[in-house]
């Protein structure tokens, strides 16, 4: 029985390869392998955490900035120059008001970045007389206004048909309040609510539903202008302006540049800072790998000497070192990704008020994390591997 075992025993063995040597060495030097792993995990998880955090912040900021309203205006193209400055209009000068066909706005659905259009608010403007006072009346889409004018707070209700909403200043000057009735061009309109002061021109206006205003001004199917809230996380706002201009050649499309550019600049600064920090941490992580691998190579002088003495070529020695680095780095990439991802989620939950906490799993980031760890591990191990391969077998032999 024993003899049979003896004869068959070697059959159970797998081949001894350079991979066997690498894996066994890592298992034998768990402390050092763990140290390299920890160095890379810290680096990778920091980068993943920062990227995930920044991306989530960007998304969150974009989402919140939607609430700051329109950032693109569509107005009729005109050959006249504006005669107003700083909110002052020169009296006695009036222009023939040009209009846009409401139907034309449907073309916005065809632009390349149509999915970035969060809200589209057509607006028709006209002057009406209320108690012998001239007031500007605006017909708006109140559903779109929820996104376009998130600062509106209505005391009362949003107007239904034959109802109006007064700006705070208009209500004060006209001495009207919710429930009162006004007559505009023989049409009786009930005041459904009053806007709380906004500090904008909206305080001076009377608002009603778009269709009601179009009927009053006899402008059925026509609008004076349109406001667009564009989400431009993935697109430059200028590109969207151009796309809208292309589909509405008769209109003038303008970006409210300051808001958008300011938003993007702030995010870009934050990203730059974050990536800078990540770079420093990765650099430190790679130094940890370099120093630890150098120490490991020094410790293994005799082992490498034996390898060389029994006929291993330089590339075989380098392969062993690189294989060890690859195994640890790959593992560090995977662990680092999950730690970074979890840390970012936790940070968002703790630091960002009202954040949903939802952070999508990103395969490309996970792949990037593993690749970054691998590249760092391999690059940092290149010098120790080179030193190990250069080791003079005779020197090693003499030290035995």
């Amino acid at each position: 029985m024993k003899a049979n075992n003896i004869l068959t025993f070697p059959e159970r063995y797998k081949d001894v390869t350079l991979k066997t040597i690498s894996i066994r060495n890592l298992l034998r030097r768990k402390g050092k392998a763990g140290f390299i792993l920890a160095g890379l995990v810290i680096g990778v998880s920091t980068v993943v955490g920062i990227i995930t955090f920044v991306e989530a912040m960007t998304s969150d900021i974009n989402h919140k900035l939607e609430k700051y309203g329109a950032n693109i205006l569509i107005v009729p193209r005109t050959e006249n120059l504006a005669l107003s400055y700083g909110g002052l209009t020169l009296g006695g000068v009036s222009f023939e008001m040009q209009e846009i066909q409401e139907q034309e706005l449907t073309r916005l659905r065809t632009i390349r970045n149509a999915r970035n259009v969060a809200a589209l608010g057509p607006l028709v403007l006209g002057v009406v007389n209320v108690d012998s006072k001239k007031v500007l009346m605006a017909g708006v889409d109140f559903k779109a206004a929820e996104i376009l004018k998130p600062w509106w707070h209505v005391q009362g209700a949003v107007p239904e048909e034959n109802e109006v909403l007064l700006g705070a200043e208009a209500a004060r000057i006209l001495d009207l309040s919710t429930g009162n009735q006004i007559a505009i061009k023989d049409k009786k309109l009930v005041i459904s609510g009053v806007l709380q002061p906004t500090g904008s021109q909206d305080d001076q206006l009377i608002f009603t539903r778009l269709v009601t205003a179009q009927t009053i001004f006899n402008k059925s199917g026509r609008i004076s202008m349109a406001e667009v809230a564009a989400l431009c996380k993935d697109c430059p706002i200028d590109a969207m302006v151009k796309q809208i201009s292309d589909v509405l050649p008769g209109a003038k499309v303008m970006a409210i540049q300051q808001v958008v550019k300011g938003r993007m600049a702030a995010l870009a600064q934050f990203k730059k800072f974050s990536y800078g920090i990540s770079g420093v941490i990765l650099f430190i992580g790679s130094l940890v790998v370099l120093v630890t691998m150098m120490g490991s190579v020094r410790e293994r002088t005799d082992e490498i000497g034996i390898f060389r003495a029994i006929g291993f070529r330089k590339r075989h020695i380098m392969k062993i070192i690189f294989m060890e680095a690859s195994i640890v780095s790959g593992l560090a990439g995977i662990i680092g990704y999950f730690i970074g991802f979890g840390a970012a989620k936790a940070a968002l939950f703790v630091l960002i008020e009202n954040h949903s906490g939802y952070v999508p799993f990103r395969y490309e980031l996970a792949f990037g994390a593993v690749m970054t760890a691998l590249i760092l591990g391999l690059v940092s191990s290149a010098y120790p591997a080179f030193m190990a391969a250069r080791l003079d077998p005779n020197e090693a032999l003499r030290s035995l």
Partner: protein
Amino acid sequence: MSYIVADNLIKKYGEGETAVSAVDGISFKIKESEFVGIMGESGAGKSTILGMLGAMNAPTFGRLVVDGIDIYELSQEQRADFRREFLGFVFQSFHLMPYLTVMENIMLPLAVVKGGKKKKREMAKEAMNQVGLLEKAHRLPSQISGGEKERVAIARSIVNEPPVLLADEPTGNLDTKTTRGIMELFGRLNEAGMTIVMVTHSPDCAGYAQRIIKVSDGKLVGYYSERHANA
């Protein structure tokens, strides 16, 4: 015909006035399947000679030809190939890999040799058979005795069937009985056709060699032949 020809080998460490001669103009020839011992006091240059024979320590001057190959005309990587194909090393302190089993240690030189797994296993099995360690194949070096470690080291050095075996004080750490066993094993390998060059302090071990090359202060001071080392 001589298998190994050392021609006026000189090895100096350092440069200029501070240079130290470890080997000073040694020439010798070793025939195929010969068992040669190298003896001398500590610092005589024995290990330096062995290093030169092992294609690991280039002489400052002189030539070393093995089987018609001028070893130090080869590149470093070619010398690594030469070591793998032509030489087996046995070191005084065994130098087994502690994280590999006996079987894996023996198969180590085959890790960089092309060939099928089955053939490699057969080669390892044959080497283990020769040293009588088949039943301990699965053990780690820490789980076997000094004599067994030495036998594993020998099995590792002969697994790829090299024509030349170089041994540096192979029994320096072993007791008398185990030493005898190892030397008998060397004798059997030599009888099977292997050329053996062994550095030793021990006259008893040298007695197993067919010829002794005696060195002192880096110089060859004499030959003894046909198992007359004790003379």
